[in-house]
């Protein structure tokens, strides 16, 4: 028995070595040899997403006879694993709704933006987002939706604590948090758990002139401003002004607590109202203000986030025509604004921008967009850096030394490229 098993393993290893030599190009994953059928993998933002795409695709197929779009909906929690599998098994979709593109562009998997949309669509993108869609100076992806971050505060708790104005500076945050704590609630909700530690951290660091890269675009994760930022957040935690254990608290927990009126302040986005506050506590009396700055004289920045549509090269370019037809169809003004208003995101095109500004809540975020700073998603190493940040950054405000944690992430970043 034992000998058989060992034999089988030996045989397996031999075959494995043989296969690895000639395993390339085995499957191109195309059932669509005519190039008129394309596969579109879309992310599930909420319950409205699938009905939107179903209707849009039906409309598209009716107006472009012979063309067909196969839709696959993937949850964000599954997305990274799915995408890796697609690429690794050479079964990429024609269009992918995702949050990164640069490593695909580096590996030569993507069309340039100019190849898959008409010049009219291409010139409609807001320049801020076009900058984020470039790899080595060329636009490789299509900005899809965007989002921004602002400081949310609970007006009732502020009144109870005797605070007149919304916080403007880091010092305000600390004193206000102390007052809110005295009034019996959590001062500041700090989510540094694995869900989105990189977004929370960057929202603070950018307002202390910190960030991920230096002026020349090199990784500068352990720069003094970032250490300073973490020390400030650590002090908030150690002074008992945050919820317990920021290192393992995710954004959704903080916002559920905020919606229940148990947290004084927290950083949120356009989705926070529809996603957390309205379902749990529609009467919550909250305000939204700019992100706090370290130095009272500096201008507040906001964190910009952008999701994209990646168009993959397939079957020697045969899918290009169908992809272009579908993307141009989607980027029509009324389709884009319908998606944005349903999902609570901000526009990436000029034409869809006006539609949202009529809502006073959304307008605050639209107005903040010009000051937005982005994570360096155009650097192919970013996804590895973000992964390291999500896993370990939170420990710096608990028991680890902030400088040491940032040094380790810096090392990861340099190793990744």
């Amino acid at each position, binding site marked *: 028995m034992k000998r058989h098993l060992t034999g089988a393993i030996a045989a397996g290893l031999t075959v494995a070595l043989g296969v690895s030599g000639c395993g390339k190009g085995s499957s191109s994953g195309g059932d669509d040899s005519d190039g008129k059928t394309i596969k579109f993998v879309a992310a599930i933002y909420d319950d409205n997403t699938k009905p939107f795409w179903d209707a849009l695709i039906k409309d598209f197929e009716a107006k472009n006879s012979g063309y067909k779009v196969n839709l696959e909906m993937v949850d964000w929690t599954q997305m990274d694993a799915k995408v890796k599998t697609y*690429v690794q098994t050479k079964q990429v979709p024609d269009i992918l709704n995702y949050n990164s593109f640069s490593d695909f562009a580096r590996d030569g998997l993507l069309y340039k933006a100019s190849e898959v949309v008409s010049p009219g669509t291409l010139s409609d993108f807001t320049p801020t987002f076009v900058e984020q869609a470039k790899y080595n100076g060329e636009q490789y992806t299509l900005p899809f939706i965007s989002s921004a971050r602002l400081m949310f505060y609970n007006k009732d708790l502020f009144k109870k604590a005797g605070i007149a104005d919304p916080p403007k500076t880091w010092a305000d945050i600390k004193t206000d948090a102390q007052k809110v704590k005295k009034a019996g609630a959590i001062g500041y909700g700090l989510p540094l758990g694995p869900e989105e530690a990189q977004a929370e951290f960057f929202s603070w660091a950018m307002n202390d002139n910190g960030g991920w890269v230096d002026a020349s675009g090199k990784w500068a994760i352990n720069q003094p401003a970032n250490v300073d930022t973490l020390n400030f957040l650590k002090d908030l935690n150690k002074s008992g002004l945050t919820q317990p254990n920021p290192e393992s608290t995710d954004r959704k927990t903080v916002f559920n607590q905020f919606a229940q009126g148990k947290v004084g302040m927290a950083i949120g986005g356009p989705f926070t109202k529809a996603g957390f506050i309205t379902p749990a506590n529609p009467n919550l009396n909250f305000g939204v203000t700019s992100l706090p700055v370290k130095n009272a004289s500096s201008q507040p920045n906001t964190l910009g986030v952008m999701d994209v549509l990646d168009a993959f090269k397939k079957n020697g370019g045969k899918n290009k025509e169908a992809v272009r037809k579908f993307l141009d169809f989607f980027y029509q003004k009324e389709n884009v604004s319908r998606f944005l208003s349903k999902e609570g995101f901000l526009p990436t095109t000029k034409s869809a921008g006006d539609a949202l500004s009529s809502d006073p809540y959304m307008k605050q975020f639209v107005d903040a967009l010009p000051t937005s700073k982005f994570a360096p998603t155009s650097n192919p190493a970013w996804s590895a850096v973000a992964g390291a940040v999500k896993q370990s950054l939170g420990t710096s405000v608990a028991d680890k030394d902030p400088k040491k944690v940032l040094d380790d992430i810096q090392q990861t970043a340099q190793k990744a490229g």
Partner: protein
Amino acid sequence: MQHVAVKRGAGHPPAPRPSLLGRIGRALVPLLWLGPSIVLIAVVVLWPVIEMVRTSLLKFTSSGTSLGFHGTGDFTDLFAESDLVPVLLRTLVWVVGIVIVTMVLSLALGQLLNARFPGRRAVRWAIIVPWAASVLMTALIWRWMLDNYSGLINRVLLDLHVIDKPVNWLAHPHQAMVWMMAVAVFVSLPFTSFVILAGLQTIPADVYEAARVDGAGPLRTYFGITLPLLRPAVLIASIINVINVFNSFPIIWAMTGGGPAHATDTTTTYMYKLAFNDQHIGESGAMAVVNFLLVLVMVLVYLRAARWREEVR
């Protein structure tokens, strides 16, 4: 022709040598029955193993594109990770701790289930429940019971004045490990106690009768007769548990995600994080191979133990 040869060869022992074709045909006949399971094993077991080993020997970019053969580079990277040794040690504690506690509790539970008492059937069914429920679901329920803000366990302990403010159980690595191991024991108990129960039922009653006649007390009977005769059941149960617990992903993933940082990771969750957080597919493949080898060692131990059992009998 072929048919005849087979018939003659089978029917009359001192028959003339069958033809070559006949012999091949006869050798292939068992394949008809074995074939499907061989194909199944090849596709479901061997192929993934081959893919896994292949992955660990290739160099991948962060997007998942293969850049070709990488030699042992992925393994060098893996062994250079400063988190690897703590994760391995934690995995050892995780496996040994859970299996020992499970076995001890199951020996008691098996004894209980074997005893005659009113409502035994209900108790037997009750013990099966955690087995029937999905592990992920059980883990999620426990995670919410242990929640800092709205968890049932904090509520009960607060009401009983055991603690004076809510404890964020899953945020502290040591507490989190203890709770997760408790959950793992909880889901391992049904299978294990039923194996023990089955073992108990194979012990003939006359052995006990003989012991009673010889004047052995309950303790002496248990350690002198029950436990030695349960050896095969205990052996099988503990080895299957070792493999299951080692590979257990959903409990840790649902309850702490292996965090903060890597403080509650075992090799199984660490392997996942290497691929999907650190974007090192090759290195994750190398971790998978190491995991596979560790499991393989355990299987070999099992096989040796199984032979040892034959010798004893």
